[in-house]
């Protein structure tokens, strides 16, 4: 049982992000959500990959793995399955999650593991100084696409809808309050939660800036969007241009999580079990 004490989640290490980077707002929102939920830092684990955004775990006092590029989901999966009592949160960039790690992203969603994945989607590779990312819009000029991107961008919301995630949302660093609420609801949700965040890279993405998003974004929840309606969610997922929706696209409650179905848990949770085999007779007999 979490006690009523509210724990400090800031580690005291100062983020090294560029002034104005969207990731500051994400960090604050994560912090706010964790404190609001009154979670105990030692029962929270934050897993990240590599990128500017993936430095986030260092600025919190929880447990964490700052892993390798693209492998947030497998590390989070292994940890969650070993100890399902932990609150496991994945964080990272669009390159990390939707590029090099996109395979794991899809599989983590179809498993409906009870983890929350926050992607700081700045539509650029920040840490490697400004190459195109899988969410960079067509025609955008970057260091790696001097004549403009000629591929279609990944649509993370649509991908999540197609892959079986049970909580699918999008936030914006320019709306810190809304973002914190989305993260909090995502952590509370039992099942896989995606929080895709427009988190502008002020240094390398001169196109998808705060000013780019501000006039376009609107809240789905203020429009009474039905989050249980998969068809409506698809419509909203494909909306892009003059109007861009923020908020919760889709929620499916009561869908069994991977942990609910894992046969090994009939013996209790892995971390708390006795090691080894007390009665090997059956294994031996079978091999005779």
């Amino acid at each position, binding site marked *: 049982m979490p006690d009523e004490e509210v724990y400090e989640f800031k580690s005291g*290490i100062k983020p*090294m992000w560029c002034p104005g980077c969207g990731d500051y707002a994400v960090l604050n929102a994560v912090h706010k959500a964790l404190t609001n939920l009154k979670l*105990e*830092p*030692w*029962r929270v*684990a*934050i*897993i990240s990959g*590599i990128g500017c955004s993936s*430095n986030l*775990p*260092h600025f919190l*006092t*929880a*447990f*964490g*793995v*700052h*892993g*390798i590029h*693209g*492998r947030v*989901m*497998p*590390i*989070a*999966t*292994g*940890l*969650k*399955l*070993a*100890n399902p*009592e*932990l609150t496991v949160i994945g964080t990272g960039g669009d390159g990390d999650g939707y590029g090099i790690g996109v*395979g*794991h992203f899809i*599989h983590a969603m179809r498993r409906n593991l009870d983890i929350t994945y926050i992607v700081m989607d700045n539509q650029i590779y920040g840490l490697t100084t400004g190459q195109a990312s899988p969410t960079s819009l067509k025609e955008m000029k970057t260091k790696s696409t001097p004549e403009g991107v000629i591929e279609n961008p990944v649509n993370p919301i649509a991908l999540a809808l197609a892959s079986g995630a049970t909580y699918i949302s999008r936030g914006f660093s320019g709306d810190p309050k809304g973002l914190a609420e989305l993260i909090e609801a995502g952590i509370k949700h039992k099942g896989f939660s995606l929080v895709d965040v427009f988190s502008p890279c002020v240094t390398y993405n001169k196109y998808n800036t705060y000013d780019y998003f501000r006039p376009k974004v609107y809240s789905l929840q203020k429009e009474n969007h039905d989050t249980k309606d998969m068809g409506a969610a698809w419509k909203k997922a494909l909306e892009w241009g003059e109007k861009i929706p923020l908020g919760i696209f889709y929620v499916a409650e009561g869908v069994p999580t991977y942990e609910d179905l*894992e*046969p*090994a*848990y*009939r*013996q*209790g949770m*892995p*971390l708390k*079990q*006795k*090691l*080894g*085999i007390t009665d*090997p007779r059956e*294994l*031996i*007999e*079978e*091999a*005779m």
Partner: protein
Amino acid sequence: MKKGEVSFRIGGAAGDGVASSAETFARTCTRSGLYVSTYSFYQSVIRGGHVWTQVRASESPVNCHGEDPDVLICLNQDTADFHAKNVTEGGAIIVDPNAVKVEKNELKKGVTLVEIPLLELSRTYSTAQIMKNTVALGAVVGLLDMDFDVFVSVVKSQFGTKKQDVIDANVGAAKAGHDFVAKGNGRLQHPARYTKVRRMLVTGNEAIAMGALASGVKFHAQYPMTPSSSILHYLAAHGPRHGVVVKQSEDELASINMAIGAGFGGVRAMTATSGGGFSLMVEGLGLAGMLEVPVVVVLAQRGGPSTGLPTKTEQGDLNLAMGAGQGDWPRAIIAPRNQQECFDMTVKAFNLADVYQTPIILMTDLVLSESYGTVNTFDFNVPINRGMMADESKPEEFKRYLVTESGVSPRAIPGQKGFQHIAGSDEHMEDGTLISDVLAGLPNSLEERVKMHDKRMRKLNGMLKDTSGPELWGPERADLTLVSWGSTQGPLREAISRVNAENRIKVNSLEYCYVFPFHTDETKNILKSASLTMAVEGNYTGQFARLLRAETSIEMNHHLHKYDGEPFEPRHIVSKIKEVMKLA
């Protein structure tokens, strides 16, 4: 045929049930009290092609599948065409004369051709094609004068109590074959005493999976790849009952990183693969080395490069295991030499992984992974050492990457109050904060980086002390010393015994199970008194000989390399010994 021993071979097309019939026979031999070693020759096809399995069974321990068959069941014409002429003198060939023709004048002396209408006899019991194999097996049980009840007991265990009709059909079909030979063709020279001493019959992969269960593995992630897949199969079938989460992952990148996540979470974690999958794991292995997370990785080798020879054996991945990952990080590489060591070394690998908080690589190859061997009943009551954990009472003093003499820092796991930390893949300081970003290269950080790198690499000293040097087998003084690693032990020892029995020269063998960290001092000590040396390994470049030379400056005098995909047979080694020692 040799006294007290039989090599049985059954061949057909993929889909004919060759491997399962061979397993039934191997278990019958095991329960009869014989020592058994098997090898399955197969191809990367599901139906058709040519496959065969050999079961060698003997009164005395056997460590390899042997050579030519004494008893051959030909389920199709190919088998007769390829193998009949190799059946040893005094042996027997079983065929259905309605389906397979054998050239009698090509057979060796005294080989009995046992013609049984297999299909016709089997029809009484079942319409299943595979039932003709059972008729043939019954005939072999008769020819070898084995106790038919032992065969029945094997069939019963295979089908369980629920499938009485299947059991009855199999027993009936086998009895028909058994009685057929009893009536007509008699029996072979009595080959062995059937003591009925109880032993286990396991593949290397099963032994590894059992070793993992005994060691308390609680998380296993794997993506299927021959010849590692049966580890996944065994653990998927048996793990959950023992609380093991077994996860078929989306790829090997996921397998290793899931295992790292679970290892970080505090449970014993493992993954298994072959060379292709291991190549994908390389970055993850370095991550585990850097995060100092214990994880056991099984690398079951097959023929390379690339997809290579998926169903064939090789020892070609030592360089890969040695060099896996950018930069230097401490690892141990263990290459069990037989099924018993597969079990024991898995236990050892888990303990080393926990004690040194780093990945441990267990290397096998297709022959060892998939071949059955008899072992004495495994003792599941194994030593378990979880290594150094942080002092629960002193969270304020905790530094995850504390620099210590041994290089090992006290560990804490998520859930432990006050021990929160970030395990980072970037270079870090004792408390886990990064020195890769703004601190990198600043005067103080140079020192910190060196301290941390030294700390990790010091683990190699401990692992060297916690593992044993190579085993010198055979006469202490010899004219030729064969040097090998892993599964080559079986055929190699048999070859040495044959050569030494001729009493012309003396040969011994220096065998490495613990491959890395390399036991340099022991190696130098032993090899300084060796007259001549020859490395025997299953790859093109002599990867082990190269490692040995790099670590000791000792150059092998001769090399025997095999990379055609088939395992070493004793005779290959015997003839090479004779060649280099100029024994015509």
